């Protein structure tokens, strides 16, 4: 490739100068991912899968700057008893983190992991590669090729407490590529918490392999930095009678694209993905979900709620694919937006593709304003217009927040959310 071609080819421009640690145990996967990325090319505006979200700031060579926002708040899950792992601008901070020791769990840092982690070699880039069909996800391939840090978590038993990944954004120009692999053995259980803005621009891939009878819980809050950008991919494979739950809260950020690609491969498995987002002004939030039912009697739920105002934009692309043998599938998908003014926009593309005949699948998508009758009812009780709007906003988001399994975590999320809404009002 000539220097000129590198400049004009956005894929090469993005790859150029990045040392993705293309060596050691992950070398084969990284080399393969780089080749796949070069074949696919980075997404552009003409790409059907990026019709509603402009990828250019996610794919340009240098990350657009994002001012660090000091909320003055403790990390959201600080009070939750958990094993805390801290990343600053996408780099693991050992001093700020707990020891990587938790009974029934082994944890290694991606950047320093030794070559004898066979399980990680069998997972790193594997679910990501699977997730490239039928829809290409070039940013995920880029991540596998060039990730600089992350954690490798192997769960052999029921973890006593959650693993909490805490991200800090300290440099206006940080450009982080994080890759996490999580493997749950048969019957194992783990909750992973994630909080904070990881960088000015974040590209994150998380691969989760949930074996038979295992259970994985995920609760994430993406941080309030207004100017941050993020493209995240969550790839999961579920075994027989396993459980997978993931909830994401997004408040602020100019651009966020959260993709979840989940494959139910064992009978009687359950996958729930949910998201609540509150956007104000220059805010673009995209939830893109692809759930494949490839086993009998599985259940999947997609619950996504967005509150938008002052020109904020919400996008939902959700698909349920039911393969021919996936009888007795129970699929549910709902995406809704609460538009607080006429400047805001919600774009939804719900899709069902069903090849089995004994299936229950429902989907719905709505956009609406605040319910005036409810607003009057609350105001007639003395609650101010602003506070009543906040209560109805929480009411609207409730179905998504309810998807959080643990009551304690649900309360933490609700408390912060309530505080953020109140602060915005004052």
């Amino acid at each position, binding site marked *: 490739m000539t220097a000129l071609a590198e400049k004009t080819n956005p894929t090469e421009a993005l790859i150029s100068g990045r040392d993705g640690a293309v060596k050691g145990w992950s070398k084969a996967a990284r080399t393969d991912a780089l080749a796949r990325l070069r074949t696919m090319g980075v997404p552009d505006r003409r790409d059907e899968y990026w019709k509603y979200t402009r990828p250019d700031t996610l794919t340009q060579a240098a990350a657009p700057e994002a001012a660090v926002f000091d909320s003055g708040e403790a990390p959201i899950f600080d009070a939750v008893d958990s094993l805390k792992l801290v990343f600053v601008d996408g780099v693991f901070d050992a001093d700020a983190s707990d020891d990587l020791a938790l009974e029934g769990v082994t944890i290694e840092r991606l950047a320093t992991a030794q070559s004898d982690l066979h399980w990680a070699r069998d997972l790193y880039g594997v679910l990501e590669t699977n997730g490239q069909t039928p829809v290409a996800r070039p940013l995920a391939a880029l991540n596998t090729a060039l990730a600089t840090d992350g954690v490798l978590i192997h769960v052999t038993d029921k973890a006593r407490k959650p693993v909490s990944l805490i991200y800090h954004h300290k440099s206006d120009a940080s450009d982080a590529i994080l890759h996490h692999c999580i493997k749950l053995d048969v019957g194992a259980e783990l909750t992973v918490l994630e909080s904070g803005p990881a960088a000015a621009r974040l590209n994150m891939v998380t691969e989760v392999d949930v074996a038979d009878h295992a259970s994985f819980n995920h609760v994430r809050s993406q941080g309030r930095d207004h100017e941050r950008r993020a493209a995240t991919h969550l790839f999961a494979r579920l075994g027989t009678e396993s459980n997978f739950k993931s909830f994401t809260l997004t408040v602020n950020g100019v651009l966020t694209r959260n993709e979840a690609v989940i494959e139910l491969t064992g009978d009687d498995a359950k996958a729930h993905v949910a998201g609540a987002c509150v956007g104000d002004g220059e805010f673009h939030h995209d939830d893109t979900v692809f759930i494949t039912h490839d086993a009998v009697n599985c259940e999947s739920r997609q619950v996504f709620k967005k509150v938008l105002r002052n020109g904020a934009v919400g996008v939902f692309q959700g698909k349920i694919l039911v393969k021919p043998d996936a009888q007795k599938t129970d699929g549910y998908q709902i995406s809704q937006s609460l538009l607080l003014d006429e400047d805001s926009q919600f774009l939804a593309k719900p899709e069902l593709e069903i090849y089995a005949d004994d299936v229950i699948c429902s989907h719905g998508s709505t956009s609406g304003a605040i*319910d*005036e*009758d*409810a607003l*009057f*009812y*609350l*105001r*007639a*009780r*003395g*609650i*101010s*217009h602003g*506070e*009543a709007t906040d*209560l*109805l906003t*929480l*009411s*609207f*988001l*409730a*179905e998504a*927040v*309810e998807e959080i399994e643990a009551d304690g975590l649900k309360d933490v999320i609700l408390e912060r959310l309530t505080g953020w809404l109140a602060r915005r009002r004052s």
Partner: protein
Amino acid sequence: MLSIKNLNVKLEDEDKQILKGVNLEVEAGKVHAIMGPNGSGKSTLSYVLSGKDGYEVTEGSATLEGDDLLDMEPEERAAAGLFLAFQYPVEIPGVGNMTFLRTAVNAQRKARGEEEMSAAEFLKVVRARAKELKIDADMLKRPVNMGFSGGEKKRNEILQMAMLEPKMCILDETDSGLDVDAMKLVAEGVNALRTEGRGFLVITHYQRLLDHIKPDVVHIMADGRIVKTGGPELALEVENNGYADILAEVA
């Protein structure tokens, strides 16, 4: 307490006059009832007084202890001491009844410059009041009015009234959708709140609610006006003869 003078109201979006000169004085410590056929403007009166959108006051005034109600936002009217028990209480998913009640109580206290109620104190008071209205702990925990029966919704309205301790209570067809037992329970709740300093305006189609909440004064409303005022016996006259006779008499 509540003073309404020559109140004329039309629909905002339509050229339709609903209230055509209502005059009414409700004194502290008294219960006034308004009866009238469908479409006479009873519910409109309650909405206009509490500040619902969609109505335009073309003439007249409404004051609460001398303060101009019509100039206030709905939440200001509430903080000033006005309470409307809704004919159709609204269901609000995802907001706990308890959260709603506490938010309302403290919002009003704050608006009046009073100290907010602590969580512990609130809990104590709400439990006691709920018990009197046979509202169980589960109903307090559930989202506002979600899955409540008609009777439960109305009892929940009275619980809100008991917690907010308003000066002037308007009950808009609180008896609608209630069986006899539920009506008795609601009426007991209202009667328990009757005090010297508090006024009541009870809007109803039927006389039977007034068997339980004994009014001091009964008004008959028709075609946007109060056409006749009398004592409790007026309600019985309606019960026995219907509205037609009275309307013919005043026509």
